[in-house]
């Protein structure tokens, strides 16, 4: 029987097969770290007198709590500053490369790894951040881990893991394209709405089908990024010419690139591989998708209305929907297009890359952000910021009335000063609409970059086709 891509990567990293119910021991090729989930792990090493086993396979960046304004001044928030300074001390002490604030390579950890060419097909990548699934877009097996596991990887460069099940998610359309105005963000929001926030639990998802094959690397990263929102440990996409062309010439691409490509071509799932589960998504039926509730599975096409909880049969889901509508301040039956927002956030490891910014710029070019709406554009990395400025996108954003910021996670999780006020409503290109995610009492609608841009112009949830 053939093997899936996930099984091939797993077997290639098996240090030791578990016996008598023990987990397998897997080798980790790349360990990414940041300031928030690493300090206690380094403390653990110090207490046990252990070194970092492979510092050269470890890369650190400052992203979660760094400010995106006044970045040359010391961080005003003392607790945030201490956390960032702690990371700097730890990296110095243990010999780990760090890209700190204001460094040309600083940015969100999941933007930095791929753009440096560090994320490559067939690798295992871990990070103390659930959106590590992003790197699966390259045919890597990549997943988020907790701080105890960060310490474990620092000390051993391995992780004990039980094998995952595999789920194929086939996304197809007649011509292999998405309809105009539909993006990979809409695809993944629709997938999560279909299988639910727990639907992927215990699985590695493999996204496949003609629509996936035609997506750019950045669009693929957006989909893999949100695998965790379906509860999956990882999401993967088979490497192909799109992947290889993206990697060619990057800083850390293999010296003998053609030899590497020849090996990478062996990675995709065999034709006779069997998945534990399969899901089909008809991309011809997809239109722009937005969330109305407080988990990423509570989403609907923008053309629909806020659902009526009384019509939900499952009791837990009905109660969850009632609580969500109360929190979101929404009445059942309200057309989603009538919902006013106060803030539009463009950025995050989901949609903070150059293609996302270009898509937003194309729409706001020559237009104005609606009165009373603030729009933040936060590039995913300093490289993305520099590239955008080279292309003049920053001028387009500021001319439209948006704020152009420095790189970081920013309002995606509101650890830095970029937060929603209580009751404030956002359209956000990020990945989570949990209660208080973007600030205590804040109300989040997850959207694509195209919907974010059109919403900023109209002031209500909108898609580009709503613009004159």
């Amino acid at each position, binding site marked *: 029987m053939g093997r899936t891509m996930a099984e091939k990567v797993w077997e290639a990293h098996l*240090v*030791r097969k578990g016996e008598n*119910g*023990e987990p397998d021991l897997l*080798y980790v*090729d*790349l360990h990414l770290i940041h300031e*928030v*989930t690493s300090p*206690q792990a380094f*403390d653990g090493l110090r207490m046990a007198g*252990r070194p970092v086993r492979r510092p*050269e*396979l470890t890369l650190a960046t400052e992203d*979660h*709590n760094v400010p995106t304004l006044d970045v040359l001044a010391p961080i005003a928030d003392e*607790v945030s500053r201490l*956390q960032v300074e*702690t990371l700097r001390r730890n990296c110095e002490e243990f010999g780990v*490369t760090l890209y700190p604030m204001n460094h040309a390579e600083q940015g969100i950890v999941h933007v930095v790894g791929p753009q440096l*060419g*560090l994320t*490559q097909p067939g690798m295992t990548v871990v990070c103390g*951040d*659930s959106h*590590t699934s992003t790197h699966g877009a390259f045919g890597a097996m990549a997943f*988020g*881990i*907790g*701080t*105890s*596991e960060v*310490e*474990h990887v620092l*000390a*051993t*460069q*391995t992780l004990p893991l*039980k094998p995952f099940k595999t789920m194929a998610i086939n996304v197809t359309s007649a011509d292999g394209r998405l309809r105009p105005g539909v993006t990979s963000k809409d695809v993944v929001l629709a997938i999560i709405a279909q299988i639910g*926030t*727990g639907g992927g*639990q*215990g699985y590695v998802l493999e996204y496949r089908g003609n629509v996936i094959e035609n997506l750019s690397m950045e669009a693929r990263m957006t989909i893999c990024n949100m695998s*965790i*929102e379906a*509860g999956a*440990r990882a999401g993967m996409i088979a490497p192909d010419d799109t992947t290889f062309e993206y990697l060619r010439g990057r800083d*850390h691409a*293999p010296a*003998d690139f053609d030899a590497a490509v020849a090996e990478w071509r062996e990675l995709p799932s065999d034709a006779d591989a069997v998945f534990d589960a399969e899901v089909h998504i008809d991309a011809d039926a997809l239109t722009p998708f937005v969330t109305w509730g407080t988990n990423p599975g509570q989403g609907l096409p923008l053309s629909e209305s806020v659902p009526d909880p009384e019509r939900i049969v499952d009791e*837990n889901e009905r*109660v969850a929907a009632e609580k969500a509508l109360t929190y979101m301040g929404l009445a059942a039956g309200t057309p989603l297009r009538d919902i006013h927002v106060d803030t539009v956030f463009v950025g995050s490891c989901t949609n903070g890359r150059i293609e996302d910014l270009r898509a937003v710029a194309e729409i706001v070019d020559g237009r104005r952000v609606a009165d009373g709406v603030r729009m933040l554009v936060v590039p995913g990395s300093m490289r993305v910021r520099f590239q955008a400025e080279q292309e003049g996108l920053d001028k387009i954003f500021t001319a439209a009335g948006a704020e152009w910021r420095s790189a970081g996670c920013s309002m995606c*999780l*509101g*650890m830095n000063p970029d937060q929603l006020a209580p009751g404030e409503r956002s359209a956000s290109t990020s990945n*989570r609409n*949990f*209660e208080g*995610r973007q600030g*205590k009492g804040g109300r989040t609608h997850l959207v694509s970059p195209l919907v974010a841009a059109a919403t900023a112009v109209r002031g209500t949830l909108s898609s580009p086709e709503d613009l004159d």
Partner: protein
Amino acid sequence: MEKFSTHTGIGVPLRRSNVDTDQIIPAVWLKRVTRTGFEDGLFSAWRGDPSFVLNTEPFSRGSVLVAGPDFGTGSSREHAVWALTDYGFRVVISSRFADIFRGNSAKAGLLAAQVAQPDVELLWKLLENAPGTEVTVDLAERTVQAADLTVRFDIDDYTRWRLLEGLDDIGLTLRHADAITAFEEGRPARLPVATS
């Protein structure tokens, strides 16, 4: 890690599904660089509401949380586990846990006991009808017992063994240091290193 065999404490009914880790501890509480002191962040948004279950007696003294399905979804922050244990919880019972949360619990000595949803409903009713009821969780027997109700819970054998023995994962892995070294010698030279 402390050994876990049985635990008895006041059960707390949390009638919510999809309790994500941003609810368990919002991101603004994650800036500490120590491993303790996260109890004030636990459910901090909900604790502003006087009627929230942990703001009522005797539930404020609870140590066994009984929650709806999909507990611990979202972020990988182990701080969610630390916030629960720092507050005094030793056990969380749910009909379904997010994978990363369940893994983090096992590392930090919090028992994530998975029971069938109908059993969660029975426990909720029991704890709401008789507040202060003590719940006994027996890891060796895999049972949850409260008043005259006894239900079974699921946990994988390996995690159960580690919790019962109080074993540290890193120590277990380092027994295989030779296998790690041997694996490293066979890694392809083309694989990248992060040093610039």
